[in-house]
């Protein structure tokens, strides 16, 4: 079971990267997709690094956690239209990353616990605001036809699924060997599947727009 998960996990990690290159011509102008591409690339690199530098595995995981928050926050910064909220994201992100780096180097508290909790709370909050904004937009496109929806769903499913794992796993060194780590692998796979769907959907975004054959509403604004 474990080797199967490893293979599936690797394939799932690589799929967003591969799909980004497959649909590169159509997607290259979408900056938000570049952010997710770099995040996926970093995930793949971290995966290889974990295998290569077993002594510093906890440091790799900690830095990856900080980068993960950074990439997710960057995606929401690019996706949310409300300017005030984007400024809040910037301010909160600076504070969060600063706090996490402080925790990492000062060792005064369990880094995993606080990083996971803060990341989950913040990203879920950004997601809720994003959905609220999308619902209030006067568009006829169904929300699941937008690539942003799939990325956000991927983020919140992954974070909510792994939150309790990180909260209750106090020893990072044992994490890789722990049987509980399979939860993280499973949700990583789910997250990458959603990200892959987002890369495919973004390609077809224009085709999925619902066109509206309405009368010219300026008709009555011309003089008789």
């Amino acid at each position: 079971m474990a080797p199967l998960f490893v293979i599936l996990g690797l394939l799932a990690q690589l799929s967003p990267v591969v799909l980004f290159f497959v649909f590169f011509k159509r997607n290259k102008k979408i900056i938000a997709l570049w952010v997710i591409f770099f995040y996926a690339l970093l995930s793949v690199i971290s995966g290889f690094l974990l295998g290569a530098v077993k002594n510093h595995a906890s440091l790799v995981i900690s830095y990856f956690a900080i980068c993960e928050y950074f990439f997710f926050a960057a995606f929401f910064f690019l996706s949310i239209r409300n300017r005030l909220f984007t400024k809040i994201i910037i301010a909160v992100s600076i504070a969060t990353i600063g706090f996490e780096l402080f925790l990492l180097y000062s060792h005064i508290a369990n880094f995993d616990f606080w990083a996971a909790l803060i990341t989950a709370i913040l990203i879920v909050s950004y997601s809720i605001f994003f959905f609220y904004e999308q619902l209030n937009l006067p568009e006829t496109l169904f929300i699941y036809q937008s690539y942003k929806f799939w990325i956000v769903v991927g983020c919140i499913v992954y974070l909510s699924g792994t939150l309790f794992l990180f909260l209750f796993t106090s020893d990072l060194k044992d994490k890789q060997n722990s049987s509980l780590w399979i939860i993280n692998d499973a949700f990583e796979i789910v997250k990458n599947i959603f990200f892959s769907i987002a890369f495919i959907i973004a390609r077809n975004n224009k085709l999925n727009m619902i066109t509206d054959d309405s009368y010219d509403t300026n008709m009555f604004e011309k003089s008789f």
Partner: protein
Amino acid sequence: MIILQIAATDKVSTVLFFGTIGMLALTIGLVVFIIFHQRKVIRYQTRLQKLEQNQQKMLLNASIRMQEEERQRIAADLHDDAGPLLATARLYLNENLVNLDKATQLQSIYSAKQIIDDTIQLIRNISHSLLPPTLKNFGLESAVNDLFQKISGSGSMNASSRFHDYKERLQTETELIIFRVIQELVNNILKHSNASFIHLTQNTSGNKFFIRLHHDGRGLTQADFEKLNKSNVGLGLKNIQSRLKVLHGKIFFEKDMSQTYYKVTIELIKEGDNVLDA
């Protein structure tokens, strides 16, 4: 110690398991709620759009029918009245006139001149009914006063108008639209209401421009107006609505509190010195 450790691990696993399931359930619930709520909103918006499109279609059809009827009327006036008159005048002015004696020639010329004068008057009347020169040259107040004077002059009913706040003229196009609306309302009152008086008042209140029409005949209430507007009849009323839509105006039909007369109120928004126009 080992037992305690195992018990602690089991407790952590249980909390982890239920915590993860709980968080997943919340997340999936949120996503499903978002999807279904948005679908409901889009379906509702689509239905509203369809209703608006149907209404616009009806107004457009009414407008086109009205234009066609007016064209037919003008064509009939020209064909049935102006055409025969000019043909008759032509009969008097034929080449044989030079062979007749002077008295007969003079008589023929005079008759032809009379007929041409009648034709000119006829064409002038057609032109005035299309666009009253009083409206263009002197404004809405003068044109409405003129119209009401003609109605009063016919003896069929007492028609009067009073403009309280009309120091500056509105744009020509706006005045024409308002005049047409008043004309249509007055025609309806003359045709259907059996009223003995019509009184029009104009005033402004803040940034709103009001025209009120009172009459003592059989009138419409707002409910009747909306019902007729949604049906295939009531061409004139649909035309009124289309015209007011151009000016972003509203119209209210009501029976006065004293139950003795009907009132039609036209409300337009003023921006600066002019009624809001597209």
